[in-house]
């Protein structure tokens, strides 16, 4: 269902481009947003259509990820330039809720991309992800922060 929704959204925005006659990227984005809102307006059972909640969530996730990236980078940078170490590194075992290949790959990639954490391996039965982290004040707290932050948000988008 999501693919057909997305394709009709694209079709509507190309129609908008053809009608307005200005083939610029800005106009395409505007047409896409306009047709998104129009399609949202004419849908009868909005709660069952995931396409409309997923788009805004994806944008929100991108900003959440950028925020985490900059925050963690600053924390690591502070540790690099000051003489004493504040690190408490360790390898942590994180139980996975994600099941499919795509979900686990994306989650491991995202964890590796934030500084201070590095995903080392996934167990053979895909139940556990081993992560090397720089700042482990409390083990349970760290696991909860990964599970409630990246994993929950990622699964909300993918499922």
């Amino acid at each position, binding site marked *: 269902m999501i693919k057909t929704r997305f394709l009709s959204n694209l079709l509507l925005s190309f129609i908008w481009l053809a009608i307005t006659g200005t083939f610029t990227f800005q106009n395409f984005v505007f047409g896409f947003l306009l047709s998104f809102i129009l399609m949202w307006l004419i849908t009868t059972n909005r709660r069952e259509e995931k396409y409309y909640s997923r788009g805004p969530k994806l944008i929100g996730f991108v900003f959440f990820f950028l925020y985490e990236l900059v925050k963690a980078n600053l924390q690591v940078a502070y540790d690099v330039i000051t003489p004493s170490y504040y690190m408490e*590194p*360790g390898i942590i075992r994180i139980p996975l809720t994600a099941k499919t290949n795509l979900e686990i790959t994306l989650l491991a990639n995202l964890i590796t991309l934030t500084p201070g954490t590095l995903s*080392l391996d996934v167990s053979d039965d895909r139940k556990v992800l081993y992560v090397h982290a720089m700042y482990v004040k409390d083990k349970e707290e760290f696991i909860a922060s990964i599970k409630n932050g990246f994993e929950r948000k990622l699964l909300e988008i993918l499922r």
Partner: protein
Amino acid sequence: MNEIIIFILSTAGAVFILLAAIGVVRMPDLFLRISVTTKAATLGIGLILVAAAVYFQDTAITSRVLAIILFMLLTAPVGAHMIGRASYFTGVKMWIKSRHDDLKGKYDPKTHKLSSEDTPKKIPKT
């Protein structure tokens, strides 16, 4: 206005790359070095590329910048993950002040199987 944006972005990018370079020298073990370098370098290169896109303000260059950033975000973690994994399993020691090591004893070098059982082991603080 554009000059200020370019100035801020490119300076921040260069600073992050510099910090990554200092991190390589200062960090005590391999895992921390990987953690510091790959990501700080990714963010730094990304910021410099965005600064280039703002400078040229050209669709062809902007789309190329977006493509480069996308592929960097896809490939950099895979490289870091493979280096980290291989070096742990070939027996690279962790920093002496490391607190937890949940991966200890989980890997079977004969069969290359990695188990997922929960047997918490704490490295005694020295």
